[in-house]
């Protein structure tokens, strides 16, 4: 508030740039409803799950929250920069293994992962501290890779990010003494309550929102829509992309750490093409350019997958049970995705966000 008043008095002076200051706060005010409503949706899902209290359903919803984190992480880079990335799951992999290194019982670590440095072998952190550190680690690695990759654009950048994914996968699948190669790393403490996952998902949504309305996020979106004009107006495109890449890398790492804690086991192949395409599909079906689209895409597609699985297991109708044949679940999912995309090529949300009020200007 005091900031606004000083700006007001200065506005009469020649300081023209300061006059624009309030518009930034009003931007936050105008857009805050999006993350609030999305968080409300997530909290509602968590509360309903808690009240139902069924173990398998609880686990399903935890998976949904983890995927929300991952897709929001993808949105921060892909949505804002318009560059398709196939490599973000690499940072999820880094985050998951970092969480494993930090939380497995030291006695067990000495046997299964003897190649770790001495200090890491001796550490055992509570899961939430490990998750934060894993997220930072993934973010720093994204910063390092991004320094090189962000000089590329378009499809070359997409392929280069894919090469990063394949590279990390090749290293983690073969580095026996540190990652256990292709065999699973077990003994990661499992967290079964739903709240930490919900809180992390909400935090991810707010980070994505804060990045999107920050100076860097606005510049990046300007560069996405009009690269030439943005560059001519002084936007350093590689730099803004790098910021988004690091932020999204950190969110992906957080998702990876929580994913590790939700199942207690990590293998390199969990974090490869399958997860890459699941998360990308959710983002694209929801709407690539929209944070709400990402979250809604995850919730809808997850619900759809769950419903199809339920049908596959068999539903009693009267005396007989109705079940669809095995494998039809995936086929139906694929067909439904194609139909959604054919009807709405920009995804369910397009570029719009959910808000309470309609925008006055277009």
């Amino acid at each position, binding site marked *: 508030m005091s900031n606004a008043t000083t700006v007001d008095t200065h506005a009469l002076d020649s300081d023209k740039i300061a006059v624009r200051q309030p518009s930034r706060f009003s931007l936050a005010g105008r857009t805050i409803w999006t993350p609030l409503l999305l968080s409300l949706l997530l909290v509602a899902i968590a509360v309903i799950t808690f009240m139902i209290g069924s173990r398998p359903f609880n686990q399903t919803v935890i998976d949904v929250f983890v995927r929300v984190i991952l897709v929001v992480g993808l949105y921060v880079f892909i949505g804002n920069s318009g560059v398709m990335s196939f490599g973000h799951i690499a940072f999820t992999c880094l985050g998951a293994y970092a969480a494993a290194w930090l939380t497995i019982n030291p006695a067990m670590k000495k046997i299964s992962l003897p190649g770790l440095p001495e200090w890491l072998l001796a550490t055992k952190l509570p899961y939430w501290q490990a998750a934060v550190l894993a997220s930072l680690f993934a973010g720093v690695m994204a910063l390092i890779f991004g320094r090189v990759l962000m000089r590329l654009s378009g499809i*070359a950048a997409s*392929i280069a990010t894919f090469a990063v994914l394949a590279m990390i996968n090749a290293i983690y699948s073969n580095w026996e003494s540190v990652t256990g190669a292709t065999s699973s790393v077990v003994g990661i403490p499992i967290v079964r309550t739903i709240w930490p996952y919900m809180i992390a998902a909400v935090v991810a949504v707010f980070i994505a929102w804060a990045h999107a309305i920050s100076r860097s996020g606005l510049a990046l979106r300007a560069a996405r829509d009009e690269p030439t004009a943005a560059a001519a107006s002084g936007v350093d495109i590689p730099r803004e992309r790098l910021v988004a890449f690091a932020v999204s890398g950190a969110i992906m790492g957080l998702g990876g750490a929580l994913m590790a804690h939700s199942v207690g086991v990590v293998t390199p192949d969990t974090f490869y093409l399958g997860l890459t395409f699941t998360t990308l599909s959710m983002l694209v079906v929801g709407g690539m350019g929209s944070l709400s689209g990402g979250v809604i895409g995850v919730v809808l597609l997850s619900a759809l997958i769950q419903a199809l699985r339920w049908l596959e297991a068999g539903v009693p109708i009267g005396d007989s049970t109705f079940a669809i*044949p095995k494998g039809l679940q*995936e*086929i139906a999912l694929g*067909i439904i995705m194609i139909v959604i*995309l054919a009807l709405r090529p920009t995804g369910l949300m397009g570029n719009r966000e959910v808000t309470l009020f309609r925008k006055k200007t277009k």
Partner: protein
Amino acid sequence: MLQIVFDALTLGSLYALGALGIALIFGVMRLVNFAHGDVIAFCVFALLWPSVDAVAIVFAGNLPWYLLIPFVVLVGAGLSVLCEIVVFRRFRDASPATMMIASFALGFVIRYFLLMLFTSRPKSISLLPALSQPVEIFGARLPLLQLITIVTTLLVLAGLTIFLRRTRFGLEMRAAAENFAMARMLGVRANRVIMLAFALSGALAGAIALIFGSQTGTADIQMGAAIMLMAFIATVIGGLGSLGGAVLAGFLLGAASVVMQVVLPVDARPFRDAFVYGAVILVLLFRPQGLLVARGTKERV
């Protein structure tokens, strides 16, 4: 030494044929077709009778070779054209990302359709067993199959070049690849050209299926994916939309994989793929548009 050269050429041939199948479609409609790998798998399974047993019940695979080869190639072309008519025709105006995800979803559908009929267990098949006999050339003993793979690839490439340079369809395709809107205005029928591209790409998938199937002797639902990843990368390194570039990069990637396998110290060999992908990033950094830049894909300002 000669063995290494032939290994590199064989692997390169597979990548080159795969990359060509992707580049053809990308050229005319800017679609990166992720379903291509699953079309390859489908071609192999078309030879078998649906069953859940581990032992494959060979069905069309018993045909003599002069019927077998056209059969597989036609299956590939047919499935590919079907994909275009049923799915991709609806995505003409969509963004590349949307088309890509749609093609991925389509590949998913094909893969799980196969899984439903055949289960996910790899099945051993003996496809054209006469080809695995070794022959001796310049003092190196090579399986006949390697030679045939290389020769077939060269023949396919030569045939495709003649087709694209000398026939009316080829001219239309090249025009469409260079500037699709302009070609349409000058009387090129868009749907026909795109269908032709899909048919050619599917026929190439059939060729890969035959070669890879007889090389590995197994039918696996995942088999398309491994080749496709490399082929996909080859298409981009070669310069998206440039057919020559795709072939060149396919052979280069094959050579890089084989040479690294030999040159790297034993400790580092498991990490071979990491080195290959690192090399890919380096190439992209120095030549982001690819080795050979296709006309019409340059960014315009």
